[in-house]
C-alpha cells in the first residue's frame, strides 16, 4: 500500500466528479481526501485526490483517469516536488482555566482562534499535513469535540536551473 496524490485537471462540468470518484470506488478504494476547486481558467477545475492503495492498481486508475473524456491532465504529486497545504478546524474542550495554554499552543503552530465559547475553543490551522497532524496530536489531551480538514491541495514546484 502506498499513498499517492493525484492532481487532476478536468473540464468544469457537472458529472465529472462522479466519473473520477467512480474509478476509485469501483475498485473498492476509499479516497482519503478530496479537494475540488476552480483554477486560473474558468472552464477548468482541479481535483486533488489522496488515496492509499496498491501501486499497480493505482497506476491503472491513473490511466483510466486519463481515458475519461472530461479529464484534461492527470499528474502525480510527490511530496518533495510539490507544495501541499490543507486547513483544519479543531474544536477543543476549553474551560476558562485552559484558555491561555491552548491559545499559546495555537500560536506556536501559527494557528488562529476561529471561535470561542464558554467551554470550548475552535482553532483554525493551515499548513502541510504533518504540521496539522502534530497539532491535532498535541491538542488531543484537552479533548477534541470535533475536527475536520479540507483535504489536501497541491501545486507543483517549478524547477530552478
Amino acid at each position: 500500500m502506498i499513498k499517492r496524490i493525484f492532481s487532476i485537471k478536468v473540464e468544469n462540468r457537472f458529472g465529472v466528479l462522479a466519473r473520477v470518484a467512480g474509478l476509485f470506488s469501483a475498485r473498492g478504494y476509499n479516497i482519503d481526501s478530496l479537494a475540488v476547486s476552480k483554477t486560473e481558467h474558468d472552464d477548468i477545475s482541479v481535483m486533488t485526490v489522496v488515496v492509499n492503495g496498491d501501486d499497480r492498481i493505482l497506476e491503472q486508475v491513473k490511466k483510466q483517469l486519463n481515458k475519461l473524456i472530461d479529464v484534461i491532465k492527470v499528474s502525480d504529486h510527490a511530496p518533495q516536488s510539490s507544495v501541499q497545504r490543507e486547513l483544519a478546524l479543531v474544536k477543543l474542550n476549553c474551560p476558562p482555566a485552559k484558555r491561555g495554554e491552548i491559545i499559546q499552543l495555537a500560536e506556536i503552530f501559527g494557528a488562529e482562534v476561529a471561535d470561542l465559547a464558554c467551554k470550548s475553543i475552535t482553532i483554525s490551522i493551515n499548513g502541510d499535513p504533518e504540521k496539522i497532524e502534530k497539532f491535532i496530536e498535541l491538542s488531543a489531551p484537552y479533548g477534541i469535540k470535533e475536527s475536520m480538514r479540507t483535504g489536501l491541495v497541491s501545486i507543483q514546484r517549478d524547477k530552478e536551473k
Partner: protein
Amino acid sequence: MKIKGAQIIVESLIKENVEYMFGYPGGVVIPIFHEIFNAPIKFILSRHEQGAIHAADGYARASGRPGVVLATSGPGATNLITGIATAHLDSVPLVVFTGQVSRDMIGNDAFQEVDITGITRPISKHNYLVQDIKDLATIIKEAFYIATTGRPGPVVIDVPVDISNSMHKFEYPEKISIRSYKPTYEGHPGQIKKACRLIESSKRPIIYSGGGVIISDASEELREFVKLTGIPITTTLLGMGAFPETDPLSLEMLGMHGTYYANTAVHESDLLIAVGARFDDRVTGKINDFIPDAKVIHIDIDPASVSKNVMVDVPIVGDCKKILAAMNKEIKPVKIDEWVKKIKKLKKENPLSYTEGKDENDIKPQYVVEQLYKLTKGDAIITTEVGQNQMWAAQFYKYTQPRSFISSGGLGTMGFGLPAAIGAQFARPDKKVIDIAGDGSIQMNVQELIVAAQHKLPIIIAILNNGFLGMVRQWQQLFWEKRYSHTCINFAPDFVKLAEAYGCVGIRVTKKDEVADAIKKALKINDKPIIIDFNVCREENVYPMVPAGKTIKETIMRELA
C-alpha cells in the same frame, strides 16, 4: 429557421449518414419518433429494448459503422443496460439515445424517470445529459466522434422531452475537437524499430491477435506481416477471422477453450506479439504462469490496456492498421524454421477433436457446427449466444474473413446472438447469417424472432439443444461434484412450434444423418427465419479446457473416464 429539438436529432443523424436505427417507443420520445416517421432512416422496431441494442451492436460489428439506438426513459433505458455494457467491453461503437423526463421534473421521481447517465457512467465510453437545446447538435456530433474513434465504445445521450420539444436553429458542426480527447493513431517510430529488432532476434515468436485488429480493419496488414515473417499466429475469440484459420500458420483460438497447440506455443514462446488484444483472464489463465520465457510487444490503441495484466517490454500505442503497415516496411526476415516446424508438428498431433456418440444416431454438437461450416463453405456470418454453443462455434467453424464472427466476448451476454444476427443481416444482406445458439440462451431474447420474420430475414438459428445450461453444467460436473443445481432446463418450449408461431420455419433434427439435410433445407429458404432444433448429446463437454485460474499444464484434453 428554428426547428424542434427532435428534428435536430433526426437531421443530425442524417448528417451522420445513419442508415439504420434500432429502438422502441415510449412517452418521452414520442416527439423524436414523430420526426423519424418521415425521415430517410430505416427504423427497426424491436420487441424489447435489449433486442434493439444487441441488433445495433451486431450491425456495428458486421459493418464497421456505428450502431444507433433510441429508447424511452426509465424502463426503456434500463433495458438497454446489458447491451451498453456488452458493447463497452467489446469496444463496439454505438450512439444510444434515451428519452428523459422534462428538465423541471428531473430528480422528482417522476413517472419513468431514472438517472441513466448515472447508471451508465461506468459502462459507457462517455455519456451526456442534454441540458440546453443549443448544445444538442454539438453533443450528437461529439458522440459519434467519440464512439467511433480511438478505442471505440458506446456513448449515451439522454434527451429530456422538453429539449426535444423546444426550438432552435440547426447548425451541425463540420468538425469537432475535444482538447481532452486526442487518441493516438501513429505508433512511435522508435518503438516500431525496437519491436522489429526484437522480433528479428527472437527464436520462438508468436502473434497473439485480438478484436482490435478487426476494429481497425487491419486484417490485410496482419496477413502481410505473417507473410513477411512466417510467424505463427493465434487469435482471441473476438480476433477470429482477421487471419484465415485455414492457413497452416494459424493456430486458431487460444485461451480457456483454445486449441492445445495455440496455448502450448504461447506458453513456450520467447516473444509474444500482442496486436489489439488485452490479455483477458480467459486468455491468460493463471497470470503468473502465462508466458514464463517470453518478452512482450503490445500494440494497442488504448494506453490503459498496456501493462494492465501482463508487463510489456515494448509497448506501441496507436492504431493496429497503421502500426502493422509501418512494421511491414521495417521488418527484416526472421529465422524461425525450427520453431515453425515444431509448432506444425504440435498442431498435427493435437487437433481439435471430439468422440463419436455411443449410438450412430447421436448428434454431437461439434458435428453440427462442422456441417454448418461445410455447407456454407465457411462463408457465413456466425453470431453466437454464450456458453458451450459459443465455444463450439469458435472451435469448429473456421473463420477466414474479418467481421464474420460476432459474439459477446467480454461480457458474455446470453441472449446476444439472435438480435445480433438481425443487426448483422441488415448490415450484410448479401451474407448468410447463422446464430449458433443454445436452448438456454435463445430463450433470453426469443421475442426478437418476430422482428426477423417481419423483415423476412433468412437467418438460421441453429439451436444446439441439450436441455441444459451446458457450460455451467460442465463446470458443475468437473469442479462441483456433479451437483447440477438449476442447470437442467429440459422442461422447454417446443422450438418447432415456437418457430411456426412466429411465422418462421421450424425443423427438428434428432438423428445424425438428418443434420446435413436440415441445414441444406434451411439454406434454401430466403424469405423467413429458420429455427433448427438439433437435439444433441446432452452431456457433451467443451474441450480442451484450461480450468479458470489454472495453467496450460493443467489443460483437460478430453472426458476423463
